C-alpha cells in the first residue's frame, strides 16, 4: 500500500507528534507514504476568508502534485482535509473558479483533472488496511484504558466521507481493535473552538471546556483526536481553562496514532509521548500497559542517616 502524503503546516510544528507517530505506525504496518515535493499551505479557512479563488488555487497545486504521482493522497490534518475537499468541490461546481485555478496551474506547468482521491489516516487504517490486518500486531493491548474518541468538525462536516455524520465510529473501531475501552462520547463532533481559543478566548476556551468536562464526566482516562488543532486546543489550554473552571482536572489529549502505536509495541519515544503537555505515560504505567519507568531510571537517592 502506498499513498502520496500531504502533512500541512501544523504537522511540522505544534502538531509534530501526529506526524512522528503516524510515520512510525504506518511504516510498522507497511503502509508507504511519500511526501509531496515542495507542498504549500492547503489554503486554510483564514486564507479562504480573504480570497476564495486563490485559496482554491493553493489547494489545487497540492492536488495536482498528488495527481502527478498517481497515488491517493493521505491528509492527516482534519483542517487541511476539509479545505482540500472543499476546493475540489469549488472547482467542480464553479466554472469561473475552475478557469482561474487552471490559469494559475498552467502558469507553473501543472494541471489538475479533479479526480484526486483524498483520504484521512483514519480511513486508510480502518477501510483500506482493515482492523483484521492489525490484530496480529498488537503487542501491548490497551487493557483498561478508557478512551473518549473525539473527531471535531471537519472529518464529518459538511460531508462525512467515510463515517456516520452524527455518531462516527471509525476511531472507536480502531482503538477497540487494539484493546482499549471506549466511552460513549456525544461531544465527539462538537466544535473545539478552532482558532477562537487564540483570538476570542472567552468564546473558544468555553467550547474546549465543554468537551473536556464531558470526557471527565464519562470517566475517560484520555481523549484521542485526529486533528492537530483539536489536539492543541484541548491539551495546551487546560491551565487557561482552569482559571475559569478550577474544578477541571488535567486529562491527556493524544492522537489516535500514538495510542495505536503503543499498543503495537512501538516505543513511547517513537510515539512522541514526550511532546505531551499533559503527560500520558503515568496513566499507561498505572494500567500496566507500559513498564513502570522507575526500574530503568537511576534509583532514587537514599537519604543518609546522620
Amino acid at each position: 500500500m502506498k499513498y502520496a502524503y500531504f502533512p500541512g503546516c501544523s504537522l511540522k510544528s505544534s502538531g509534530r507528534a501526529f506526524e512522528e507517530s503516524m510515520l512510525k505506525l504506518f511504516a510498522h504496518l507497511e503502509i508507504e507514504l511519500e511526501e509531496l515535493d515542495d507542498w504549500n499551505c492547503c489554503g486554510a479557512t483564514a486564507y479562504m476568508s480573504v480570497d476564495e479563488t486563490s485559496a482554491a488555487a493553493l489547494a489545487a497545486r497540492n492536488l495536482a502534485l498528488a495527481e502527478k504521482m498517481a497515488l491517493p493522497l493521505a491528509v492527516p490534518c482534519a483542517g487541511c482535509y476539509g479545505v482540500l475537499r472543499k476546493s475540489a468541490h469549488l472547482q467542480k461546481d464553479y466554472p469561473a473558479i475552475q478557469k482561474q485555478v487552471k490559469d494559475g496551474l498552467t502558469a507553473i506547468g501543472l494541471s489538475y483533472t479533479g479526480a484526486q482521491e483524498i483520504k484521512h489516516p483514519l480511513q486508510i487504517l480502518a477501510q483500506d488496511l482493515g482492523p483484521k490486518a492489525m490484530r496480529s500486531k498488537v503487542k501491548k493491548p490497551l487493557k483498561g484504558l478508557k478512551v473518549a474518541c473525539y473527531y471535531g468538525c471537519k472529518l464529518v462536516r459538511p460531508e462525512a466521507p467515510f463515517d456516520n455524520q452524527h455518531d462516527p465510529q471509525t476511531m472507536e473501531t480502531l482503538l477497540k481493535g487494539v484493546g482499549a475501552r471506549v466511552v460513549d462520547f456525544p461531544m465527539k463532533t462538537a466544535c473545539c473552538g478552532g482558532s477562537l481559543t487564540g483570538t476570542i478566548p472567552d468564546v473558544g476556551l468555553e467550547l474546549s471546556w465543554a468537551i473536556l468536562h464531558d470526557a471527565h464526566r464519562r470517566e475517560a482516562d484520555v481523549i484521542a483526536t485526529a486533528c492537530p488543532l483539536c489536539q492543541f486546543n484541548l491539551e495546551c489550554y487546560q491551565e487557561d481553562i482552569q482559571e475559569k473552571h478550577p474544578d477541571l482536572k488535567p486529562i491527556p489529549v493524544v492522537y489516535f496514532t500514538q495510542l495505536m502505536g503503543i499498543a503495537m509495541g512501538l516505543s513511547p519515544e517513537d510515539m512522541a509521548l514526550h511532546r505531551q503537555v499533559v503527560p500520558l505515560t503515568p496513566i499507561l504505567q498505572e494500567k500496566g500497559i507500559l513498564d513502570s519507568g522507575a526500574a530503568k531510571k537511576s534509583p532514587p537517592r537514599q537519604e543518609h542517616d546522620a
Partner: protein
Amino acid sequence: MNAIQREIRYESDRDPAFADAIRKMPGCEAIDRCIQCATCSGICPVASYMDITPRRIIELTRSGFKDDVLKSNTIWICASCYACQVECPKEIGISDVMMALKTKAIAEGTYPKGMPIPILAQEFHDMVSQTGRVSESKLVQKLYLKTNPFKMFGLRRLGMKLMKTGRMSLKGESMKRPESLQRMLQAARIKK
C-alpha cells in the same frame, strides 16, 4: 447613560445590490429558500455570544441590510464548524454565507474595531502568499503586535510549554521554491 439606538429598519437602509452580490458567491445561492426556522441558531455552539443570531443574519443579508450584517460580531465568532449547515432543512450553505460575509467585510474594511480575526486572516494570507507555508509562532507574534501587544506576556506560559516539548519553532517556515507559488497566484488572480 447608554447610547440611544434606533431599532427600526427602514426600506431606505436596504442595499439590494449587496444581497445580490452575496447570492452570487459560492455556496450562497440558496439563501432565498430560508424559512426562518432557526435550526441554525439553535444548533450553533456560539450563538449565545453573537450580537445577531445566524437565522437573523440570513434574513438581514437577503433583505440587503448590509451595514448590520458586515458590522456584526457574528461573522467573526462563527468558527466554521458547519453544524448549522448540515442540519438546515432547506440545505442552505450557512457556513459558506458566513465565509462570504467575512470576505466582504475584509475587502471593505467594515469589521468591528479591535476584532483580531480579520487581522489574523490578512496576516495569514500575506504570509502564505509570500512563503507558501504558515510559521505559527511568527503569525501569533504579528497578530498580537497589531492587536494587543500586552497579551504577548499572557502567552509566555503557553510558549514555554511548547518550547519544552519541542512543538514551537522560532525559525520561519517556507517552501523551497515559493517563487513558483507566487507565479501561480498571480496568474490565478487575473479574471479573464
